[in-house]
Every structure is written in C-alpha cells, then in structure tokens.
C-alpha cells in the first residue's frame, strides 16, 4: 500500500504574511515530489526557509500560493485527524516535561488510533515495541525522557514517529546539536527505515554531510529564494552545492567534502 504513496508539490510559494497584506516570500514556484521508499533532504544554509517549507507541507503554515497533494488529495481538504495517519513528525520543539518516560512519549504516537480513553490495544503495544527495537532503545524506555542524552532523546522521538505507523515521516533538523557518532547513527537508522519499511522520509537539515551521504535526493534551498533539486552527486559535481553554501572566503571543498577557508 505504501508503494504508490506520494507527496506532490505544485508551484508552491512559501513565506509569511506580514502586516497590512504584505508578504515575505521565501521560495516561489516549487515543483517536486516525495515518493514512498525514498529519503529526501531539504538542504540549505541557516535561514533559507527549510523549516517553513517543511511546516507548509505539514499544514502548520499556509502556502502563499500553490498546492500540496498527499496522493491525489489536496492538503487543504485533509483533516488534522487524517493527516495524523499520513505523516508523523520529529520537530525541533523542546519537550520540557520532567516526568514523562520514553515509553509514555512513544505511546503518544498511537494517539490517532483507538478510542478516547487512550488505553493501548494489543496492536498499539506491538507497534510500540517494534518501533522501540527498530530504533534500538528497548533498554531505556522506562527511563525518564528529560534525563536522556540529546542523541537518545532524538531516537525516542523517531521511535514515536515510527509507532505512529504512517507512510511518511517528516523531520526538522534531526541531527542538529548531536555529536558526530550519534549523528551517523541516526542517519543510518533513517536510511535503514526507508529500506525496511518503504516509508517516505523528508528531513530538513543544514548538515551537508548527512544529506550528501544519505539522501536519495536533495531539495536545495538558498537564502535568496533560489531552489534546485537533484541527486547528491549531481548537485555536488555541478557546483550547485558551492553556489548555495559558499560565502566570502569559505568554500565547500568537493574532494575532501568539507568547508575550508579560501582567503588569506
């Protein structure tokens, strides 16, 4: 069933409405799609509008123009409830509760299913267990979430998204603020998830490493409204990565795959 699932974007413009009808446009006329079974990264420098695009696709922000489709259904006509069975999210929002356990947080992923009492069914428990072992956190689910490390917290949030059992998962900067080994662990996990479950994963990131090494495709966003898309190698070899990321005296070195100082 997941194979033919698609998120389609048609001449979408993202941005904000300002006072007195004025608009701040971030990107115009985006056309693209995300299919089941692929990992797509929205890549761009800070302030390019990655989160805005991601949140527009989720319906949290309104598009200035254009349309978003989930399968053939337009986003506007999809209810919050239906949406919860299409996309699960991992956001940058901080969870400030100090008592919830990892397990309780993951259980909230089962919210779209079951009645108002919130009592977990056998199916719910099975899905939660599976998500926990898929992410490799079965040993710490009884721990209090606020006491976990940042990497562990992120894994819990990913497990929560998996437990929601949706064809798509959208992640906003899932590897920011995480040390390098944990970062690779999480990217590997997302990659494996796409392989194993055929979910479509869309993640916004400013981390070139993660995007270049793990994405099937990259949507490249620039700070001045530029936009491009392609496979990581194409974007790299055509010099587009440089065009979007380089600053005065700082350039992305294609051979060593890292930024270096090119000034004096």
């Amino acid at each position, binding site marked *: 069933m997941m194979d033919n699932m698609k998120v389609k974007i048609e001449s979408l413009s993202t941005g904000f409405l300002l006072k007195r009808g004025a608009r701040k446009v971030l990107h115009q006329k985006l056309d693209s799609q995300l299919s089941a079974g692929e990992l797509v990264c929205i890549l761009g420098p800070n302030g390019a509008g990655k989160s805005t695009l991601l949140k527009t696709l989720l319906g949290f922000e309104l598009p200035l123009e254009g349309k978003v489709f989930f399968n053939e259904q337009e986003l506007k006509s999809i209810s*919050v409830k239906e949406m919860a069975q299409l996309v699960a999210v991992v956001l940058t929002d901080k969870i400030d509760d*100090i008592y*919830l356990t990892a397990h309780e947080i993951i259980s*909230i992923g089962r919210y779209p299913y079951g009645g108002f009492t*919130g009592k977990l069914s056998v199916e719910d428990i099975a899905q939660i267990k599976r998500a926990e072992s898929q992410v490799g956190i079965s040993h710490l689910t009884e721990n209090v979430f606020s006491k976990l490390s940042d990497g562990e917290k992120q894994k819990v949030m990913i497990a929560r998204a998996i437990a929601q059992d949706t064809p798509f998962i959208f992640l906003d900067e899932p590897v920011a603020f995480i040390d390098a080994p944990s970062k690779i662990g999480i990217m590997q996990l997302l990659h494996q998830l796409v392989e194993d479950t055929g979910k479509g994963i869309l993640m916004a990131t400013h981390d070139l490493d993660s995007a270049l090494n793990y994405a099937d495709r990259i949507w490249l966003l620039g700070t001045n409204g530029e936009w491009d898309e392609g496979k990581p190698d194409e974007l790299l070899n055509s010099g587009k990565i440089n065009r979007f990321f380089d600053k005065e005296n700082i350039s992305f070195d294609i051979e060593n795959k890292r930024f270096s100082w090119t000034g004096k």
Partner: protein
Amino acid sequence: MGGRLNNSFWYSLFTILLAILFLTNLWYGSVVIPWDDVLNSLFRSEDQSTYGIIVKQYRLPQAITAMITGMALSVAGLLLQTLFRNPLAGPSVLGISSGASFGVAIALLAGGGLGVSLLGSGGIFTGLIVIFAALLGALIVLLLILYASNHIGNIVTVLIIGIMIGYAVSALVGVLQFFSRAEELHAYVLWGLGSFSKTSLSQSVFLLIIGVVGILSSLLIIKPLNAVLLGEQYAKSVGVNTKRLQTIVIMISGFLIAITTAFTGPIAFIGLAVPHLARNFFQTSNHRILLPAIILMGGALTLLCNLIAKMPGYDTSLPINAVTSFIGAPIVIWVIIKRGRVKK
C-alpha cells in the same frame, strides 16, 4: 514517594484518607460530637437531636462543600497548567474568580451606594443574591475568555488577557469599595476570605452534583491532554484539534471555578498546589494517573485545611483562605525549587 509501582494502592489509601478527613470534619468543631451520634445523624433521617441538627445542617454541608470545591479547583488547576504549559497557571489566571468577586461587589457594595442595602433584607435572601451575583460575574468573564480564545488562537495571549481582565476587574472593585459603607465593605471583605459554611445542605448537594459532572467530563480529555504535553505542534501532528481542546479546557475549568467560587468565595492556592503535589508524589505527568490522584488529594487537602481552620484547642476559627494560602504557598515553592534542581 508514591512511584509507579502500585498506583491503585495509593488511590485506595487516599480514598480512605479522604473518608477519614470527611468524617473528622463532621465530628470535630466547636462542639465535639461523639462518633455514635455522628453516624446516627447521617443514617437516620428522623434524628432531630441537637447533635443531629449540628451535623446535618452545619457540618455536613460544610464538609461536602469543602470536598467538592477542593476537587473541582484542583482539576481546574491541572487542566489549565497543562493547557498553558505553565506551572504557575491556576484557577485565578482566567480572571474568573475576579469576575465572581466583581459580581459580589456590585451586589453588596453598589447596592449600598444607591441606598439599597442588601444586608438589611434578611439572611437567606442575601445569600442567594450573592451566589447569583458571583455566578453571573464569573460566567460573564468566562464568556469573554472563550470569545478571546476562539478569535485569538495563541494560548499565551489568552493567558495574558485572562490575567489582565483580573486586574481590570479588581480595579473596578476597588472603586466600588472606595464609595461603599463600612458594613457592606465588611461583608464584601468577608466574602473574599472564602468560606465553606455558607451553603445549606441542599445547596451543597446541588454543588456536589454539578461539580461531579464537571469533574467527570475532564476524564474525557485525558488522551488529548497527554498529547499536549509534547507541545502544540506535536499534539496537532497526532491528530489533536488543539483549538477545540483549548475551548473545552477553558469551558470545563471555567465552569468548575465559576460554580465553586459562587458558593464559597475565592479559595486560594488549592488549584495551584494540588496538581504539583500529585505530580511530585506520583512522579508522573500522565493525566490518566494524575486526574484520579488530583481529585482525591484535592478533596483531602481541602478538608484538612477546613479542619485546621477550626483551630483545634481554640474557641475561634480562621478564614479558610488564610489556611489554604499558608499551606499552599510553601508547597508551590518547594515543588518549583525541586523542579529547578531536576532540570539542571
């Protein structure tokens, strides 16, 4: 502390504690009534002895009112703390108790200013007018807040509007106080100190019934309340209609605050402190565990405060607000300090 091991054990214990405190409230007072007579007067409707009358006409309504008010305010406090994601949210933040005060101030003080003294017109009648005035004031503010909430999605804005309405209304009350006569002012101040002893038996039973309805309706939103603990966007992403939840929470908590305040006057700190006490005791934010705990603890703590207000060993009694504040404020301070330590 409580811990997760066996919540039903703790529920049972708190239920027993609640029952003991309830009975102790019937037994203890300026006259200590033998236990036999307490039970007799409860279970024999034809009991017309002095003890029977004291228990049935004074202590029973007082205990019922104290218990249900404590439960209702604690539930309201929990719902508002979760909705606003703010540990200092409580029944006072919506401005509803200020609205009730305003209603009472108009009834007691403005009447006096116009030369129509309510106080002269007889006890029961005055009591009823005060209840209606408080209810009316509270419900008007509740409608204002609901209107604001529906037109302004932002929850922090709603919180600030609630607090500001509270201030504005207090200012108006201040003006009324300034122009009122000493007796009316005294009556108003007394109302503001809160009391569980103004209700008749039938009024207290009425309050009990509508209070229980309000409290039970909060059990219907346990699931979305838990989702909201992750923040508004996560809640939306799992299918919570956050705007509708906001309306429902304000309606339920506003209703609970309005009805109890109408009968008792504003009761400080219970609604703020009990949710913290329960979270800390059960070490959880899960509303499925918390709500029953808060209902039991809120009732028990308020009955305990009422008992303390009777000043065992002295001939006089204290205003209930003095006791709840004296007990509630340290609880809140203690929990907030502890919370700060956990975060680091």
